[in-house]
């Protein structure tokens, strides 16, 4: 149960106990974090679960598949180097303490 903190665009922090094996998107939804919309339910169709994972944390993430890469180019908030789709990342034990920043707009 790694602790992961989601941070809204306005700086509000939401620390949650994440379950390993569940996606970062599902973890946000399960904890009623509104900054993730996930309109398509995790099918990698909508780019409304966009998040930013900075610095060393990004090394703990699975490599990006081309589908995610392409969808990110069309996210509502402009893509950054740290951009990921949270539906494509499963929580692992080594994410203890990870910080996930959320964009102001998903749609």
């Amino acid at each position, binding site marked *: 149960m790694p602790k992961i903190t989601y941070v809204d665009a306005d700086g509000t922090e939401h620390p949650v106990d994440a379950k390993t094996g569940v996606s970062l998107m599902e973890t946000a939804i*399960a904890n*009623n974090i509104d900054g993730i919309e996930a*309109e398509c339910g995790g099918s990698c169709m909508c780019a409304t679960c966009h998040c930013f994972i900075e610095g060393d944390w990004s090394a703990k993430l699975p490599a990006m598949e081309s589908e995610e890469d392409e969808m990110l180019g069309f996210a509502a908030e402009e893509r950054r180097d740290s951009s990921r789709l949270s539906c494509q990342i499963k929580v692992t034990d080594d994410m203890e303490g990870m910080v996930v920043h959320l964009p102001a707009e998903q749609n």
Partner: protein
Amino acid sequence: MTDPVVIVGGGQAGVQLCLSLRKSKFDGPIVMYSAEADAPYHRPPLSKSFLLDKIGEDKLPMRPESFYPAKSVALHLNQAVTSIDLDARQVLSGNDRQPYSWLLMATGAAPRQLPVDGAELSGVHCLRSLDDSRAIKARLNEVDSLVVIGAGFIGLEVAAAARSLGKNVTVFDTADRVMARAVAPAISQWYQDMHLQSGVSLRLGEAISSIGGNNGQVTHVNCADGEVLDAQMVVVGIGVIPDAGLAEAAGLHCDNGVVVDEFCRTSDPFVFAAGDCANHPNPFAAVDRLRLESIQNATDQARVAAANIAALASGGAAESSSLTSYKAVPWFWSDQGEHSLQMAGLSFDADEYVMRGESTANSFSMYHYRSGKLLAVDSVNMPRDHMLARKLIEAGVSPGAEQAGDSAFDLKALLPSKA
């Protein structure tokens, strides 16, 4: 205290209305009625990953149970609304009367029934609800052969899922190609080849005349040409009928669904409608109004309804000119087997099709044009083309046929630069 916003129907549009109302800082009470026992859930997996046990029921709810109290939404499951009193602004559920300030009709649609003898036999299924999917999943485990009636998205998704479980699958459709109403002919052809290759039997341009059984259980279908085909299960996917009975009985203007204006407002100013049940004007359609059956339409119409309810509730929108209108580009998707089909725009009466990529490479798109204007793009395993198509259509940009057909040409360069 103001009366709540009441939502009739526990689906995609209803949940989105809650989300969007709260996001817009609307803080009045919200009450949601659903006739189903299950809290609002994702429907797309019901015809694919859920059937294949790739995801369990725990993954289906759209939001956790805690969402509803957290958002001050009173969710009434297993509670159908029985009538609506527009004059009193109340919905009735049995003997309960619930007043509303604004009402959202999000009643969705019901599967069209197959009008043949034997359609009532056990083992004949349609697929709309979680209960339908549970029943199909349970039955699939016990049968060798199934027949699918209707080569639309749902029928083909179920066919592909069943085939991957090793079942004998035969799909019937009276049209001469699959997904005939939805995609370009070249896309139909590619999917026909794909399904045939995986071992699905396609009977296009053919109908069944009846379903036969024994002891109330399906055993076979009788084809229109007299052939008898063994099947212990039949899945019917021949479209849906909007669920507008309640709205019609209440006196709302209905015609192929609940008629709404561009603000998602019905003929009663205090009642909105969104999703599959809403017959609406759409700037991307060649017809005056239509219904769309998609996540995108349900979600985006609910956003529009929420914006307008929130504006009206705050007293800030006495004039129609300050209301939000629905003008989102329609998009759809269908996962069949391992392949992703994504569609953007509405293709009506296209007079020209342009292919981008090679259909033999299993990832390509078809651009639909009418009089040189880009109407729609169907993409097979090409998410980039799809996302770009949504932007192009939204911006009203029509790439020339040569540009669309040239994979080396960067279509993104045609988009107006972001301000």
